[in-house]
């Protein structure tokens, strides 16, 4: 997020932050590479095929998956559909106003979409009913309920969990009769995104809104289960050096493994 802010307060805050960071400290006492506690509630919405509420510190999002039958895109007749949409609800912060999705919520939608799509989490080819005519469409809608930084990762975890735990009615023709059975989506792996920001020479993982509001650069990287990079996005209005970027990759990779272990544990317990 970068809402329009008061430039004086922003400058004061940045000075204070840089002073703390020179002693390797953050405002909330965390280590620079430490995440806030992540808490997860699975399937809070019974009417959705899958859903998850995820909090990272005070950031809270809820994602719901709806699986419907529809037409495939003309350029991918033999693939199911994946549609990711994020919305910053006006109740989520004093700075958000009602209206059509703005560029920031569109960015979250598209970064989450690319992470899930490019990691090949979902075998979209298995979601075809009749090639070119009928496919299953997986709609992932993410509501941002409370904003306190790092919406990318909160939205990503919520989206991944709701897809991984979703059950839908699959039509199967058995001995000439059409039957429906409840099955899981064709999930092949659990991708994880890790977001960090730079302030001066410092790299901070999982920024709060306060930290995020003074960042130089922001980087979100999505990893698949083999530790390969499958999507990434730079934000922020200051240039990033190649060395800094590689340092961010090195810091993010082990963090992604930690978060993946947590997600898998939650799914295993479901």
């Amino acid at each position: 997020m970068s809402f329009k802010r008061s430039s004086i307060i922003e400058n004061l805050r940045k000075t204070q932050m840089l002073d703390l960071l020179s002693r390797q400290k953050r405002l909330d006492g965390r280590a620079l590479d430490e995440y806030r506690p992540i808490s997860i509630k699975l399937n809070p919405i019974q009417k959705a095929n899958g859903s998850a509420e995820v909090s990272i510190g005070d950031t809270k999002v809820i994602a719901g998956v709806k699986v419907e039958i529809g037409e495939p895109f003309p350029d991918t007749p033999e693939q199911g559909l994946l549609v990711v949409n994020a919305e910053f609800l006006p109740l989520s912060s004093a700075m958000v106003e009602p209206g059509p999705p703005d560029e920031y919520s569109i960015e979250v939608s598209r970064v989450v979409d690319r992470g899930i799509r490019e990691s090949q989490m979902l075998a979209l080819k298995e979601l075809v009913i009749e090639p070119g005519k009928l496919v299953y469409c997986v709609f992932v809608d993410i509501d941002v309920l409370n904003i306190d930084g790092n919406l990318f990762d909160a939205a990503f975890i919520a989206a991944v969990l709701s897809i991984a735990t979703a059950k839908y009615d699959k039509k199967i023709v058995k001995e000439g009769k059409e039957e429906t059975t409840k099955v899981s989506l064709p999930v092949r792996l659990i991708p994880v995104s890790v977001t960090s920001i730079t302030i001066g020479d410092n790299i901070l993982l999982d920024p709060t809104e306060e930290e995020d509001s003074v960042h130089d650069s922001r980087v979100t990287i999505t990893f698949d289960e083999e530790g390969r990079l499958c999507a990434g996005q730079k934000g922020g209005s200051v240039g990033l050096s190649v060395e800094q970027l590689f340092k961010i990759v090195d810091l993010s990779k082990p963090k992604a493994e930690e978060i993946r272990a947590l997600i898998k544990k939650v799914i295993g317990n479901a």
Partner: protein
Amino acid sequence: MIKLIDENGLRLDGRKFDELRPVRIEVGVIKNANGSAYIEHGKNKIIAAVYGPREVHPKHLLIPDRAIIRCRYHMSPFSTDERKPPQPTRREIEISLVLRRAMECVLFLEDYPRSIIDVYVEVLQSDGGSRCASITAISAALADSGISMRDLIVGCASGKADGQIILDLSDIEDKEGEGDMPVAYMPNLDKITLLQFDGIFSEYEFKKALDLAIMGNKKIYEILRKALMEKYFKTEEK
């Protein structure tokens, strides 16, 4: 699966893995604008125009100690294989945002308090790497407008096709390949101002792709410099 690289290591359009498509830049193509540029990068044909710094409307957008940038990246309906409806898509809105951020890296916005700089990008014909070509055009237009800049920005993508890291992806390589990494770069400050990627890259491939994109950017920088010199030396002679 389409084969993107043949046995001789050549790509569908005959390029080597580290070869750019032809790039041509023309500075000062829109009379009314404060700065403008036209770029052809492969089949991309893109115009960028800068208006401002000028008074902010609506007033509530104003920031007291610096200028704001408003960027609109737009594709003409005839720019793609199938007609693109004229209203902005989510993709265009996101690209407008990342282009704006790339510009924020390079401009001395604090030199123009309480004002707005409008940057319009129109893609007349699209090919792979249109956001990268756009940022090069924007940078030429900004330089043409005379707004103070820290450096120039150039854009060039790298990516992965048939398991190989390649430079400057064309449309088909972008669609059929295994990965795409658009990078915008300030060559004198050696800083990245725009980075996105999708596809599957091992850590080694990621680093290799980034290095290759930066190498491509440095080549485009020379073309951009020449285009700017061309315009300004000509004017001096008149």
